[in-house]
């Protein structure tokens, strides 16, 4: 047994402030997503809305482990990544509302969050399409002798796609600093992993390319954080790519249109009740006297206000100016036509 240091979890070197920040971010993502669903029902948000509820520990654990200079590219279930990176919830919500103040000015919506200033090069909505791009970011880092790692976050479904295999091969062949972080939430839309993948453990697919790989409990934010730290260190030290599979679960439908005919309510309840990442961290923090219930309640309350403020901001923000419709198709001028 490791002895308990005041304000720390046993065996975990993280200070109390970081643990509370992880907690706050997970609650923020949870509440942001729940409120987004409400706003969807009210017609304030349209199109595809893929919620991250249940998977919060993966984004928070992994992204808190990254260096500020590291690159991030992700798939479309991306609100959690943006919030974990510390992006403004108001601008995130405004993007869902299709407003000019959104992260990408209302151009992308739910699936295409991005913030170049944080090296978050975007959420991509073509399954697996981001993976070669991540490898390319790794190539740039290596070419320029930087110590930046390119982190790619994607789903189990992406691992069955050719783009995944091309990207892994390139990254391994050229020893690129790329962390492939696969969120195995057991489903790709309504297709359970065992009906889509010949191999049920995603991390085993990395062995074909000699990429070191491991599985981590994606409901345990500390475990995700620590595994990601190690993986990033591996990549940063010039050892090439690393593959992490986080076992997780999405509580809600694939998108708002999902009737969830393909799985039982019991299965979902089981994860909600026994493997919830927020409850787990809360219990750890309280049990080990890192924080009191009152402290956590104060954080919950602050999140509640931040999310309400995000909705207010999004609601009051202007729509994109129609005059900007054709802006940013080309970066260099076109004088003809």
């Amino acid at each position, binding site marked *: 047994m490791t002895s308990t240091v005041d304000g720390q979890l046993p065996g975990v070197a993280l200070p109390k402030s970081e643990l509370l920040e992880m907690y706050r971010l997970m609650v923020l993502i949870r509440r942001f997503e729940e409120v987004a669903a409400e706003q969807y029902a009210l017609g304030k948000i349209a199109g595809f809305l893929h919620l991250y509820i249940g998977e919060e520990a993966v984004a928070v654990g992994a992204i808190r482990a990254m260096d500020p200079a590291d690159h991030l590219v992700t798939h479309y279930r991306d609100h959690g990544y943006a919030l974990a990176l510390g992006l403004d919830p108001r601008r995130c919500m405004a993007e869902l509302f299709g407003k000019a103040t959104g*992260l990408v000015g209302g*151009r992308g919506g739910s699936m295409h969050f991005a913030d170049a200033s944080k090296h978050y090069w975007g959420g991509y909505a073509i399954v697996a399409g981001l993976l*070669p791009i991540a490898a*390319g970011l790794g*190539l740039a880092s290596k070419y320029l002798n930087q110590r930046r790692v*390119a982190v790619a976050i994607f789903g189990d479904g992406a691992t069955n796609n050719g783009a995944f295999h091309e990207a892994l091969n390139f990254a391994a062949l050229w020893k690129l600093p790329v962390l492939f972080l696969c969120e195995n939430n057991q489903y790709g839309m309504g297709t359970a992993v065992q009906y889509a993948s010949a191999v049920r453990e995603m991390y085993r697919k990395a062995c074909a390319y000699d990429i070191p790989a491991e599985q981590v409990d994606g409901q345990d934010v500390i475990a995700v954080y620590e595994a990601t730290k190690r993986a990033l260190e591996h990549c940063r030290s010039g050892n090439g790519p690393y593959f992490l599979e986080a076992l997780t679960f999405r509580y809600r439908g694939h998108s708002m249109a999902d009737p969830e005919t393909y799985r039982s309510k019991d299965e979902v309840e089981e994860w909600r009740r026994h493997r919830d990442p927020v409850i787990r961290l809360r219990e750890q923090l309280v049990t080990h006297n890192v924080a009191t219930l009152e402290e956590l309640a104060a954080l919950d309350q602050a999140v509640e206000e931040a999310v309400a403020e995000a909705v207010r901001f999004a609601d009051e923000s202007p729509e994109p100016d129609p005059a900007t419709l054709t802006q940013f198709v080309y970066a*260099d001028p076109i004088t*003809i*036509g």
Partner: protein
Amino acid sequence: MAREITYRDALREALREEMYRDERVFLMGEDIGAYGGSYAVTRGFVQEFGPDRVRDTPIAELGIVGLGIGAAIGGLRPVVELMTINFSLLAIDQIVNHLAKIYYMFNGQFTAPVVVRTVEGFGQLAATHSQFFENYFAYVPGLRVVAPAVPKDAKGLLKAAIRGNDPVIFIEHSLIYRNRGVVPDGEDFVLPLEGAEVRREGQDVTLVSWLRGYYLALGAAEELARAGIECEVIDLRVLRPLDIETIVRSVQKTNRLVIIEEGWKSFGVGAEIAAAVQERALDDLDAPILRVASVEVPMPYARNLERLVVPNKDRVIEAVREVLYRRLPVPAAD
């Protein structure tokens, strides 16, 4: 000062000069290094610049373009090569769904200045290796599509593509690599990435084409000149953005238009040009716009059959005669 060099050498000069000018420029593609490039455009480059800057890749077109995108976002200037345009279909998701979208979709926050060099053509290569897909790319907002016919453009436009901030699909033609032409000296010879060029003036009919089609148009124009018919020959050079104004100005003079394209006629670049011209200059047209294009079959291997498929000079001449002398049906008198 200027020299006469081949189309291939013009491309080689452009790549070498840009690689010396900017360390961030690197090449990536199948067999471009040790093998020297399928069409020898990069022969000797890996010896000159080393394997980090001239990267042989696996046969993974989607990955090649995708890595190019990531590298560009990460601060490099990738020039990626797709061995032929036939294989670009394996990369089309990266090109259309990613490369073309990044600047707009993320609200102008960052660009992906990737140059995708590729080549089309034919030569008894049969159905899967003899296709013309410039229309697939010219359709897509966000891409620039360049298709140079002469060495001067090959060099000046490739350098511009590498220096620019937009993604460029740069299409070469396998049957014109040895064509010679005058190219200005100097490393700063760079052309704007837009605008067609009137390469031969004439008042009787306008011929529009690009890549090898331009040479067919020119050949037909020379032969027709001996018969007293003066063709105006326009080389498009860049397909997107399309310089429709230059075509319209010419049609306002000649009142007749023939488009020569090597791809299939249906849904092709020629269809777009014809539509755009009639939108602006219907009243100037004295004859229907004709397109000389490939016969709509998968390309056959046999030499005689292949010759029947692709446009040739005689078919261009035939089309010119048709727009000049076709009798429009006379309305029946009451």
